[in-house]
């Protein structure tokens, strides 16, 4: 019996791996997700069967309650709120790992057995990682949801406090590991970890949340892995490790795209609440910009053969994706070639902009990554930038003292004409003025993205 159960768990682990492999292409991704669902269902059924029973009623209640809550949350969520939802789910995964480890610990205490060294170490790891993931994710959720302000919240002597908390965690863990019967130390570690999760995330600005979510994603995987070590269950170890690796890769990608180090993001307390450029233009420069309206923009659109659209989060805030898609449909019916250029940090989590555009029925083969499309701007009539700024700021290439310097950007300035749809002349999140606003070939169309593009569509239909 035991062997069959182990083999079935192995099959489940293999399915998880195949599922992730199929996620490598848009064509097979949905099948891949289904593989993972089957793998998970299998793991759950084996667990129930291996206990020799279908399980006491309280288990069924837990399963049903969790399924129902998860179902409702997943069905109701708006695509713009996806980062919050993922943060919340991360947190739930984390707390589940903590609870399992703590319950296991009390069981051993009640049975009067003293755990072996490896078990007590992994129990402490599981509690630590799970709890930090839980409270950290709740803070990330609150920041993204606007319950907490997005700006960094820095307490006096914040880093010293974090250091102190870490020392407390280590001390508590050591005290338990070398004196296992004392079940109070794990509780102390749990509480300190909970505080640490909070103080770890509150000093991180709202615009850096993509990195935090990716990192917490990784932690929730590691927490599951640690629980696998405690229970000696390989499917937990493997699945957790896969998620851990995934989160780390995404964390790294986001940092590279923002031109920052992970340490700078986590401990730098950089930035204001968000990066969509509501601040005033710095430096008091009184240079002229060419202002246009939606109708003017429509006239330009009548003359072009190709356009590359650069969407930023401002587009999603204005809920202008759908009207933008309507605009591109009109343009395409007139033979204009339309492509979208997606910067890695467009949106509030890795890949977020692609989902927002897919929701607005934009076919995914029109969405191009930065490296794929950067050479095409020079042969393009118009670069249309909607609600983005820093990711197209040429200062990143040349201005050595700029915080943007070295950041990979989209080469919109190589296009024949550049058009910004933007609320104001403000600098972006990085506080760096964009010289492209004042360029002769640039048209600035100020206003809410949805209103401007609606006017533009009206103009196109009349023209």
């Amino acid at each position, binding site marked *: 019996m035991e062997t069959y159960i182990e083999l079935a768990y192995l099959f489940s682990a293999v399915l*998880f791996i195949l599922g992730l492999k199929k996620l490598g292409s848009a064509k097979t991704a949905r099948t891949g997700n289904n593989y993972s669902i089957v793998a998970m269902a299998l793991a759950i059924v084996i667990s129930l069967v291996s206990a020799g029973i279908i399980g006491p009623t309280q288990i069924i209640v837990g399963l049903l309650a969790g399924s129902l809550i998860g179902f409702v949350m997943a069905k109701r969520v708006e695509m713009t709120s996806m980062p919050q939802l993922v943060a919340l789910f991360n947190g739930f995964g984390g707390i589940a790992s903590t609870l399992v480890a703590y319950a296991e610990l009390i069981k051993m205490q009640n049975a009067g057995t003293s755990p072996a060294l490896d078990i007590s170490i992994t129990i402490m790891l599981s509690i630590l990682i799970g709890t930090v993931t839980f409270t950290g994710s709740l803070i990330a959720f609150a920041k993204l949801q606007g319950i907490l302000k997005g700006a960094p919240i820095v307490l006096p002597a914040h880093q010293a406090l974090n250091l102190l908390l870490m020392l407390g965690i280590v001390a508590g863990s050591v005290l338990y590991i070398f004196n296992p019967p004392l079940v109070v130390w794990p509780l102390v570690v749990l509480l300190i970890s909970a505080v640490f999760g909070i103080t770890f995330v509150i000093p991180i600005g709202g615009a850096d949340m993509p990195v935090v979510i990716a990192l917490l994603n990784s932690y929730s995987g590691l927490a*599951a892995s640690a629980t696998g070590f405690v229970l000696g269950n390989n499917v937990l170890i493997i699945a*957790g490790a896969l998620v851990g690796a995934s989160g780390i890769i995404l964390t790294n990608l986001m940092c590279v795209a923002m031109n920052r180090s992970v340490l700078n993001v986590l401990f730098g307390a950089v930035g204001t609440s968000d990066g969509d450029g509501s601040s005033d233009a710095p430096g008091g420069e009184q240079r002229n910009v060419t202002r246009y309206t939606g109708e003017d923009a429509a006239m330009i659109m009548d003359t072009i053969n190709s356009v590359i659209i650069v969407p930023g989060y401002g587009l999603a805030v204005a809920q202008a994706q759908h009207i933008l898609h309507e605009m591109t449909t009109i343009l395409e019916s007139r033979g204009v070639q339309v492509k979208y250029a997606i910067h890695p940090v467009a949106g509030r989590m890795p890949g977020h902009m692609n989902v927002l555009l897919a929701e607005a029925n934009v076919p995914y083969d029109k969405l191009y990554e930065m490296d794929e499309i950067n050479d095409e701007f020079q042969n393009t009539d118009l670069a249309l930038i909607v609600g983005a700024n820093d990711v197209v700021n040429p200062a990143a290439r040349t201005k050595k003292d700029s915080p943007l310097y070295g950041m990979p950007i989209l080469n919109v300035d190589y296009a024949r004409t550049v058009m910004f749809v933007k609320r104001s002349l403000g600098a972006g999140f990085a506080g760096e003025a964009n010289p492209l606003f004042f360029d002769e070939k640039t048209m600035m169309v100020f206003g809410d993205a949805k209103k401007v593009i609606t006017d533009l569509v009206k103009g196109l239909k009349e023209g």
Partner: protein
Amino acid sequence: MESLILSIYVFVLAVFIGFELITKVPPLLHTPLMSGSNAISGITIVGALYVANISNWELPTLLGIFSVTFAMINVVGGFLVTDRMLGMFKKDKGGK
């Protein structure tokens, strides 16, 4: 200790597989990747079922039930929202 070493082997090899697989996922799919892998981390459900599987109302069992509930939210919600997103990704019908 021997079983610990074996577990570490499994963990390290799985991390390498994870790196290999995830680096091949295009940025287009990074959000579904995140929510999907997030659901996979709900595998803790296996541990939760294990600790909750006793017919009494003592503390470990209660913790186990809460754990089952939280993990199940993570699993069902995560997979469902991933499927919802992936269902929105469509290729251009014109096929140009």
